[in-house]
């Protein structure tokens, strides 16, 4: 059974301008690559989320300001709401553009609730930094939390997994005291990287205590260490929590080519990660999951990682090389060379001299994290 893929051309209206890294070009490259392989993604009859749906997780005062910015009526205090900054600039129609992405992720959740699909791939969204009353880090509204809340209100228990290189702070804080939402974020340590949170001692509060997990990783963490901690944390956490459904943010910015962060994963790690993830979905959450996109700012790497996610979810074999015509077209567009193969060339992967120290540090974080949360797993 193939996995439904959600996409609508309106997703491409979520854009902060030609110089901004969060670019719709990533989506264009991905869609044209899939098409070149004979897997054209059909557009779906999707709807933008309504204002009321956004208000299930966001403060009305934030929504009012985004709506204002959307039509050029910029309130004097928008900076306090994370709008009009260098990373989340104002653009015409931003309210509706974001509601399209929220609508897609929400529809993925509804399809699972209606029993139409067990897994859904949403080709957009993953706006995990947006908080209750604040846009942040390229994220205007939080599509993930709107979908998660829709699922929990329907009585489901949700495990949220975030492999974006940045901490999934918005989702964590929005559900921080909720017992029915387990959040798991692996990211580069906030000691260095935006947003700065996601330390192991952020474990939830009230009913959510022990149900918010963070694995902050050392800069220059490589494949093996990442996969090792991924398994060491996810297996016990999911085996204990037993979610009804998983929501997974598949940011591709932990790749070594990414210009915004400092982890050095290769496409081989992503392949293993996606396969392992799917095993966990089957084993621990009844085979039900929503997959979204997220960060990923190297056009070259992000396109290949997300193409691989698509192919693996559909059960297609992974081609060795990318279509020549596709590559030439995009090299012409971008004026730079692109990797000709789906996987990274072995000699392109950086060598990290501090490796043993990094592996040791990451493992230490996992040990301490599990010590912190396990007492609450009763």
């Amino acid at each position, binding site marked *: 059974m193939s996995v439904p893929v959600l996409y609508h051309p309106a997703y491409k209206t979520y854009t902060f301008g030609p110089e901004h*890294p969060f670019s719709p070009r990533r989506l264009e490259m991905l869609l044209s690559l899939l098409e070149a392989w004979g897997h054209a993604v059909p557009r779906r009859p999707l709807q933008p989320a309504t204002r009321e749906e956004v208000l299930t997780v966001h403060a009305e005062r934030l929504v009012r300001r985004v709506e204002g910015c959307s039509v050029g009526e910029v309130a004097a205090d928008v900076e306090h709401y994370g709008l009009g900054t*260098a*990373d989340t600039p104002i653009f015409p129609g931003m309210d509706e553009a974001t509601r399209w992405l929220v609508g897609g992720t929400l529809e993925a959740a509804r399809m699972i609730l209606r029993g139409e699909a067990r897994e859904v791939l949403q080709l957009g969204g993953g706006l995990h930094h947006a908080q209750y009353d604040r846009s942040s880090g390229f994220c205007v509204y939080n599509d993930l939390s709107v979908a998660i809340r829709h699922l929990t209100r329907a009585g489901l228990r949700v495990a949220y997994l975030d492999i974006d290189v940045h901490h999934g702070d918005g989702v964590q804080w929005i559900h921080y005291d909720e017992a029915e939402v387990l959040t798991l974020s692996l990211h580069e340590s*906030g000691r260095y990287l*935006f947003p*700065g*949170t996601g330390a192991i001692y952020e474990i939830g509060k009230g009913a959510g205590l022990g149900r918010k997990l963070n694995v902050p990783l050392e800069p220059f963490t490589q494949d093996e260490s990442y996969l090792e901690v991924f398994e060491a944390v996810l297996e016990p956490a999911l085996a204990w929590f037993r979610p009804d459904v998983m929501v997974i943010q598949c940011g591709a910015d932990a790749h070594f080519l*990414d*210009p*915004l962060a400092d982890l050095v994963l290769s496409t081989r790690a992503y392949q293993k990660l996606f396969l392992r993830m799917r095993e966990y979905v089957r084993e621990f959450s009844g085979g039900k999951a929503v997959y979204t996109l997220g960060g990923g700012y190297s056009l070259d790497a992000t396109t290949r990682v997300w193409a691989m996610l698509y192919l693996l979810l559909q059960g297609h074999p992974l081609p060795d090389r990318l279509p020549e015509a596709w590559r030439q077209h995009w090299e012409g567009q971008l004026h730079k060379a692109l990797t000709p193969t789906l996987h990274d060339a072995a000699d392109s992967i950086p060598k990290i001299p501090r490796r043993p120290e990094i592996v040791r540090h990451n493992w230490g974080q996992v040990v301490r994290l599990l010590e912190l949360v396990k007492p609450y797993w009763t």
Partner: protein
Amino acid sequence: MLVRDVMRRPVLTVDERATLRSAYQVMQDHHIRHLPVTRAGKLVGIVTDRDIRLAVSPLAEGGPRHLEAAVGSIMSQPVLSADPLDPVEEAARLMRRRKIGALPVLEGEELVGIVTGIDLLDALVILTGVEKPSGRLEVRLPDRPGELGRLTQFLGREGINIHSLLTYPDDPKTVRAVLRVGTPMTHQVAEMLRIEGFNVIWPPQKKG
């Protein structure tokens, strides 16, 4: 950041005639380890939970005291104190140098608060902590006038908001500035700074 920003108030005190037993009970009830001691409402000494435990133990010099002995007989005096307008680092330096765990805070003769090592740790967390979504930048600057100004002006021109800024001596000729800035794009900011001639330590240059 000043002592008045981190001190605890109101302060619990005991009169010098109070018994060791009752003073110890006050500490237990309120989960505190330091009690300023007063005479006619004026600060005359300070006593800690360890002072009391030692005084009543067989290890005490001259043998154990009775639990009904007066606090005044074992208190430390004169008391080192802080002023509410002292910078926190001044209080920290004094406590470190004299190896003490708390400073009563006096405004003239009036006891207005108390500051402990724990409060200073809180201050450290606030000074270095992440209050808002931000990324880290570290820049090594020549130790001479105008260098920090050049850095902050540059960030200001680029529209980058600085959430926190710490500087400390790096070697005899340079100062290290550690900033938290409100953007996920610290790599790009670092590149711009390098082009401007700044010595950026973090984030490192990425190949790719």
